[in-house]
């Protein structure tokens, strides 16, 4: 009898903690969307902020985040994919390979604010790019590298060796095998990783703090050497630094909703690609 009660209790705490995790997610989404969605409107996402940020929309922050994420990916994808190709297709077990793998794991564990410091020292100061969307994008690109490498390598690993051998036996060079057989086959997997990394980069704030983000610009960023607005930074400013914080709360909720929706849409696309690939193979 006592044992039965004990086992019932075990079941309750295991299920209970899982339910708690679900409740946390539900609370986060409910609080932000229930208060944020009412302030969303067409003009909120197509207008500039006005009257000292207490009215108007968040268009420049949306555009800034899109440009920033684009620069990040243009930089991170080629390097990340090339590094993953080296590790999976060329590298033999050696001390050098181990060092590269250890570096990647450690890079993934470095706090994002330290990437911000590195971007400030390297891109803003040493390369004289100034505080700009280019500096910030390159900084986020470095931060994204380890994730792109790891997910791409996972995707490459899943391609059976027989495919490579068949191509090589037909007389293709190793590079041709990779370009024409391995990469096209691994594309859905690589794409999933790239999109998930994008959603992560779009939500990052700490690395862009000193590398180019601005509280307000009165013009849409068009050139890579300009400062820019970004959704996560806009949310940070509206919720902590604005002089009339209570008044702009609805705008902050609206910005949070847009940011989370953007991140979720990217995640759902990634899930969809992964799901489709699984059901076809």
């Amino acid at each position, binding site marked *: 009898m006592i044992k039965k009660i004990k086992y019932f209790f075990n079941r309750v705490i295991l299920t209970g903690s*899982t339910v708690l995790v679900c409740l946390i997610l539900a609370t986060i989404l409910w609080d932000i969307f229930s208060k944020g969605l009412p302030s969303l409107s067409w003009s909120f996402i197509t207008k500039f902020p006005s009257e000292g940020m207490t009215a108007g929309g968040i268009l420049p922050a949306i555009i800034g985040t899109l440009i920033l994420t684009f620069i990040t990916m243009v930089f991170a994808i080629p390097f990340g994919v090339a*590094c993953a190709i080296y590790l999976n297709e060329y590298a033999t077990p050696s001390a050098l390979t181990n060092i590269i793998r250890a570096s990647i794991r450690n890079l993934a564990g470095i*706090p994002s604010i330290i990437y911000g410091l590195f971007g400030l020292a390297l891109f803003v100061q040493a390369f004289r790019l100034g505080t700009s969307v280019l500096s910030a994008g390159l900084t986020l690109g470095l931060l994204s590298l380890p994730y792109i490498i790891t997910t791409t390598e996972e995707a490459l690993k899943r391609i059976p060796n027989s495919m490579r051998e068949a191509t090589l036996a037909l007389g293709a060079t190793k590079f041709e095998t990779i370009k024409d057989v391995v990469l096209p086959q691994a594309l859905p997997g690589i794409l999933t990783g790239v999109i998930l990394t994008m959603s992560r980069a779009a939500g990052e704030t700490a690395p862009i*703090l000193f590398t180019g983000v601005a509280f307000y610009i009165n013009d849409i960023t068009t050139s890579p050497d300009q400062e820019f607005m970004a959704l996560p930074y806009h949310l*940070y400013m509206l919720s902590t630094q604005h002089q009339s914080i209570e008044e702009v709360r609805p705008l902050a909720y609206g910005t949070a909703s847009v*940011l*989370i929706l953007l991140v979720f849409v990217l*995640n759902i696309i990634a899930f969809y690609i992964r799901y489709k690939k699984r059901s076809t193979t």
Partner: protein
Amino acid sequence: MSIKQREGRDKFFKVVFKASGLLTIGLLAGIFFMLFYNSIAFFAEIKPIDFFTGSQWNPESNDRKFGIAPLLVSTGLVTIGSMFFAIPIGILTAAYLSEMAPSRVKTILKPMIEMLAAIPSVAIGFLGIVLVGPGIAKLFGIQNGLNALNGSVLLAVMALPTIITISEDAINAVPQSHREASLALGANKWQTMFSVTVPAAMPGLIAAVMLGLGRALGETMTVLMATGNAAVLPGGFLDAVRTITATIAIEMGEVPYQTTHYFALFAIAVVLFLITLVINLLGEYFANRLRKFHA
């Protein structure tokens, strides 16, 4: 294309791929070098002993003080507090997912956990200001809920997906034969789980906790927004704190280039970098132990 051209291209791209591989070592070395190089200038002016033992962080006053203790204690308090919530909930959820959950429930829960991981830190910090902070203030009858406890709760939420995912992998990695042997000896499902499966997965669980800890330790925006930002030695969880990450975020934007204060921020970044490095290496060590154990 002639065979010569094709072979040339083959060789060329081999070099390109290898160079990108080496770039990652260069990047880690570059970050390491940048942090140390900039903090040397700081330690030339401020004695390391004052930096590590000083109990005041007050870099802009006339009688400037660069003691890292308040920041270090703040970071420790918030991080350890977050683990207090995240470890039990995370491991129990992982145990539920791998040992109890029907596969249909699993296919819903796994994407939910990924969604939780995808929520940007700035949004979690925002909820700390508008939801969790006021809740804590009401619960404890204090005026302001922006304190270490608030930061701990929020960081726990951020560390949870990491801990759950890696713990679940660790529990799944325990060979089925272990469970079957235990059941065949007459142990029931629960005895098997608590006396066989979980202990066998222990190194993996420790690795999961280490990675979660690393994530909480390096988090910036959440603690910057939700912990009150007071750079003084905290007395407890209901005091406002300011972590190393938050201090860098606040002060780097305002400090003049290449002053002692500027270099001081690199010095505290070195400390943060080394702590996360040790935690990551420990996590890796335990993950390898698990792999060896089951190989």
